[in-house]
């Protein structure tokens, strides 16, 4: 958590995650309540035309939430959006990054607009998103 007031150009401390494995996905399925078999059952995934199971988009979004709340307390988070641009595969090692792009005012409150991204070890973008965080 930073003591100084966020300003445009500030970079959030990056969050580096361990590689995604089948245990990661099984645990997240149970904990998140998303039991879609495409993420945990290779037979179902293959029938659906995928080579293997793959990560829940919401797992990567939960990691982006950690990026934000590691930086500022959750009570300041006003808005959080994610566009899922690529599938996160087994073995992918995700890093979450973010940068304050501008300070805006909404409903009489000053907010930092933060652009956030998650990408794997090959630099492939998986999520682009943005958040509004109260100053």
């Amino acid at each position, binding site marked *: 958590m930073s003591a100084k007031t966020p300003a445009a150009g500030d970079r959030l401390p990056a969050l580096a*995650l*361990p590689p995604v494995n089948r245990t*990661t996905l099984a*645990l*997240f399925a*149970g*904990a*998140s*309540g*998303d*039991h*879609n*078999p*495409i993420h945990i059952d290779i037979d*179902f995934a293959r*029938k*659906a*035309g995928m080579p293997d199971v793959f990560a*829940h*988009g*919401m*797992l990567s*979004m*939960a*990691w982006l*939430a*950690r990026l*934000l*709340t*590691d930086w500022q*307390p*959750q*009570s300041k*988070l*006003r*808005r*959080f*959006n*994610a*566009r*899922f641009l690529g*599938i996160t595969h087994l073995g992918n090692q995700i890093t979450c990054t973010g940068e304050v792009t501008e300070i805006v005012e909404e409903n009489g409150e000053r907010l930092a607009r933060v652009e956030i991204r998650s990408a794997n070890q090959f630099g492939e973008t998986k999520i682009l998103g943005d958040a509004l965080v109260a100053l």
Partner: protein
Amino acid sequence: MIDKAHVGREFPAHSVAVEAGRLRFFAKATGQTDPVYLDEAVARDAGYRGLPVPPTFLFSLDVEQPDPFAWFNAIGLDLAKVLHGEQLFVYHAPACAGDVLTFSSRISDVYDKKGGALDFVVKETRVTNQDGVHVADLRATIVQRNA
């Protein structure tokens, strides 16, 4: 193709009690070690009534239903062909362990791209707590690949 007549369709509201154990399991599954999400005393010192519901867990509470994918079937989405395209959360008030949250959803948009190769369905969900306080709004965009 998903029938555009589904726009405006509402689904029955459902209520979920937020349990501390579920929040700790979610913290474990997402690698969260910040004690505010794990330790009741730390959460209270930070000003919360109980362990806070982390930013994306509202989505998980919304799928806490006997058949969370019933609405997929109701409008013709096939679980084997869908991807999560976009997810938005707008936060109005904190949610914590001990709360009972009510989720009310409706289909707000249906459209297609690439000559019908991709269908998009947008579902909006309003979340209120046991005191009637408006806690958050969710908007999920689901994409179906029509091979």
